[in-house]
């Protein structure tokens, strides 16, 4: 088995030992109607309506979507246009909370009798990939091809972020319970929980817990970025290669994030949909880095203040990890389903870009064996045939090439621009 390229990053897991703190219910929340991949939701409530905790407030007819629930009780005060960090425009509900946190009558454990009802329940929970990509989970759980292996992604390979790690340490029973649940409901034979070597405590804990169950393997991944990327984790835990144009399910594999699987277990037990989540708050402008659990819709500003951040010094705020996260234009944006981290920095990289010296570092680090330096050249002259030969469409934007470039060339960005030049079939 060949070793895939990767880079050693400074882990900066400053918050790995910070027990999750529950953020108090804010006075106001703002809930965008597009938080996952797929179709945006239509609001199910009007301005002036009272909502309760767990009440469904947005849904879509489209199959490729996930419903949205309120995490607070209170009154809808506004429905406005909202631009997501991805740049899409959707509606957002603003809810003034009453502080009572009255539970909705709809909250009850879902009735699950077979695979269909399980997948339906997962959709109703509103869950999506909690690792950051936000793929609606119920779609993943319903592939066309037979699945023999469930991979649980506990790599958390991005620097700073420890949200999944805290899930594994604090809620390890939910993780194992979730793995067993999904395995049983979908009739999958084996499960592999893959964790990066920089989390020895989690590896030890789960190895002990899964000791008497030989259908659950605990896999130690090397500490090299990007272990958590879907194709990389599948290859490193099963040796299977997801080929160009294929889905993981074509290779008989489903990959779920560790927090996602633990959430599904809790949902099936309690019926409480996805209305809150844990995120890591860190970065050099944050004086007290923390793991915080908060309702979806809480503004970044309040969370940064909660972690004693000097807001005046902020230069860059990133939703997600430093390698693949999105820098946001303002801190009044809310926590969404996919927010696994909030990083605040008082500096940013303002080095200018210089000529490519052809050192080949980008080629050496690309986990997929792409040649970013050549793609950069081909993009410059808009040579589409060459870009196709170089397989730029396979780039997953992990950012390793830009990270190592001594000329500070924005290679990952160029790859994304180059992809757009290639006509889709």
């Amino acid at each position, binding site marked *: 088995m060949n070793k895939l390229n990767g*880079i050693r*990053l400074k882990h900066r897991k400053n918050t790995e030992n910070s027990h999750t703190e529950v953020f108090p219910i804010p006075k106001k929340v703002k809930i965008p109607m597009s938080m996952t991949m797929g179709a945006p939701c239509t609001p199910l409530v009007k301005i002036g309506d009272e909502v309760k905790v767990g009440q469904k407030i947005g849904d879509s007819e489209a199959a490729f979507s996930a419903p949205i629930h309120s995490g607070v009780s209170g009154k809808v005060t506004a429905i406005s246009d909202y631009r997501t960090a991805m740049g899409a425009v959707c509606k957002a509900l603003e809810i003034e909370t009453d502080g009572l946190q009255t539970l909705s009558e709809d909250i009850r454990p879902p009735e699950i009798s077979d695979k269909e009802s399980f997948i339906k329940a997962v959709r109703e929970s509103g869950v999506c990939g909690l690792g950051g990509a936000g793929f609606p989970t119920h779609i993943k759980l319903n592939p066309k091809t037979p699945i023999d292996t469930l991979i649980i992604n506990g790599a958390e390979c991005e*620097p700073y972020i420890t949200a999944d790690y805290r899930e594994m340490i604090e809620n390890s029973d939910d993780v194992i319970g979730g793995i067993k649940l999904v395995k049983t409901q979908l009739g999958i034979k084996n499960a592999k929980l893959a964790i990066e070597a920089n989390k020895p405590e989690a590896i030890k804990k789960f190895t002990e817990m899964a000791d008497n169950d030989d259908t659950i393997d605990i896999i130690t991944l090397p500490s090299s970025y990007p272990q958590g990327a879907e194709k990389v984790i599948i290859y490193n835990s099963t040796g299977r*290669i*997801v*080929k*160009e*144009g294929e889905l993981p399910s074509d290779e008989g594999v489903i990959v779920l994030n560790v927090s996602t699987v633990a959430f599904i277990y809790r949902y099936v037990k309690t019926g409480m949909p996805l209305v809150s989540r844990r995120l890591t708050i860190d970065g050099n402008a944050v004086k007290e880095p923390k793991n915080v659990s908060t309702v979806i819709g809480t503004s970044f500003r309040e969370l940064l203040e909660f972690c004693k951040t000097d*807001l*005046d*010094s*902020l*230069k*860059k*705020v*990133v939703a*997600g990890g*430093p*390698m693949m*996260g*999105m*820098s*946001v*234009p*303002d*801190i009044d944006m809310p926590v969404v389903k996919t927010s696994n981290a909030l*990083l605040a*920095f008082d500096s*940013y990289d303002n080095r200018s870009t*210089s*000529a*490519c*010296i*052809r*050192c*080949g570092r980008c*080629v050496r680090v690309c986990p*997929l*064996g*792409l*040649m970013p*330096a050549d793609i950069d050249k081909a993009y410059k002259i808009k040579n589409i045939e060459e870009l*196709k*030969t*170089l*397989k730029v469409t*396979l780039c997953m*934007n992990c*950012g*390793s090439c*830009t*990270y190592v*470039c*001594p*000329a*500070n060339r*924005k290679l*990952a*960005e160029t790859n*994304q621009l180059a992809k757009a030049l290639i006509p889709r079939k």
Partner: protein
Amino acid sequence: MNKLIVSPSPHDDNYVKTSKIMLNVIIALIPALCVGCYFFGWRVISLTSVCVASCMIFEYLCRRIMKRSNTITDLSAVVTGVILAMNLPVTLPYWMAVIGCFVAIVVVKQLFGGLGQNFANPAITARIVLMVSFPSAMTHWIKPLEYQYDAVSSATPLALESSGADSLPSYLDLLLGKVGGCLGETCALALLAGGLYLAARKIISLAAPISFIGSLALLTAVSGGDPIYHILAGGVFLGAFFMATDYATTPITTKGKIVFGLGCGIITFVIRRFGSYPEGVSFSILIMNVLTPYIEQLTRTKVFGAKEAVKNEG
């Protein structure tokens, strides 16, 4: 509050810059320069200084005239200056060295677009141009430790061997550099140390040097020559570690680097064995530089999970 900066990911980098890489190359060249100084005297310092200064001035002026950004601070011109100086005999008149720098920086590097764009190694090309233009000045070697710059020319180890001299320099003299030759190419040990330093800092890959030196040794042995003598003599180590590893003019992938090194080894052997010109290493690197784009086309990486592209040409 300040305006927040919005930019595409990643939002972090490893802070290795072009200038830092170049600085490390300069550091790696220092041992060989010091040994050169010890054996060939003060003129090593003055000739190297002239080369570095003129390379920097040419680089600055050229960029200025072409209305391009100033690239002095990336230190690549300094590296070219030092490597070129190391490829010259210590007695070379300064004005000839300046012509070499002009060829290296202006003709080979900047006219082709500057750093990273040149098709041939600037220092090698300059050495060959000087060799062809001033053959006697470029082959005036002095005896080590005598510091007699006006003395009658001595001979390089390879010239001694091909002339069938009775006493050849010992392996130890070749390792330490106590032989006639260009001011930075004689001490194999110092060059090896510099090369290993760069490899340890992950600045160069040893693929090309190993395949270069290895194939040359093998071919020499097979043809009945003395492989150790041949790899230690005549600039093989300088070429293999510092010029066959040049980023811009050698292939990017490991496969490509191995092919490049093999080509260098074979051509060096052929020139030394059958040619009448004493420039095996320089010519082999230059020829392989020219072939690099073709090697690159044939030695691209295999993309993980990629399906064969459907060829539809024309």
